[in-house]
């Protein structure tokens, strides 16, 4: 493990502490988990961060792009 210092605003620190407490983990573990979700699992394929970046709730999302981007016909 490498020890490092980070500066947080008071609000960020409080929010992070609350979230860590809610999850039952340390603040350090919360920060490590947050970092892992930001960094690609395989650094040689950084584009894979796009994979599963969002969850629209629509199983047909990729087939209704035109409706979203261009709008549906009246």
């Amino acid at each position: 493990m490498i020890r490092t210092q980070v500066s947080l605003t008071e609000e960020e620190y409080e929010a992070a502490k609350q979230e860590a407490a809610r999850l039952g983990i340390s603040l350090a573990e919360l920060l490590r988990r947050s970092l892992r979700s930001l960094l690609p699992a395989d650094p040689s394929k950084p584009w894979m961060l796009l994979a599963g970046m969002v969850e629209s709730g629509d199983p047909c999302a990729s087939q209704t792009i035109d409706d979203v981007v261009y709008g549906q016909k009246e």
Partner: protein
Amino acid sequence: MARRSEAYVDTSALIALADRSDTFHPLFRRLFSNPPALVTTPLVVAEGHGWFLRRFDRYKALQFLARLESMTPLAILDIGRKDVSSAMIFQRRFSDQDLTLADAMGLHVMESRRNQVCWSTDRDMRLTGVPLIIDRA
């Protein structure tokens, strides 16, 4: 070892990759994790960006662009007046369909580059006979 052939990437492939709710998400996650050479157009990038803007927000839309920027196997082709004219030929040929200019440009690119497969979930992209990857998988 023979070079795997280049695939054309449509907006729907990028959205299926990004959206874990999409039925085709597992397929495109697998495909993009070990891709051949890929090509697309700025119109596809613009559509994808527009989808994130409309569906989510400007921050997600910017993230989308950043992820594409890092996608080194994907070439974003320069398009000019001649390409737009060629795409319009497809628009006229398939005037009974609601083809977007991005779709028509994709059909033109696939024809001119002799792409053998299209990474898409959009049936319109099959109009010229190039198979969709979802039918092969």
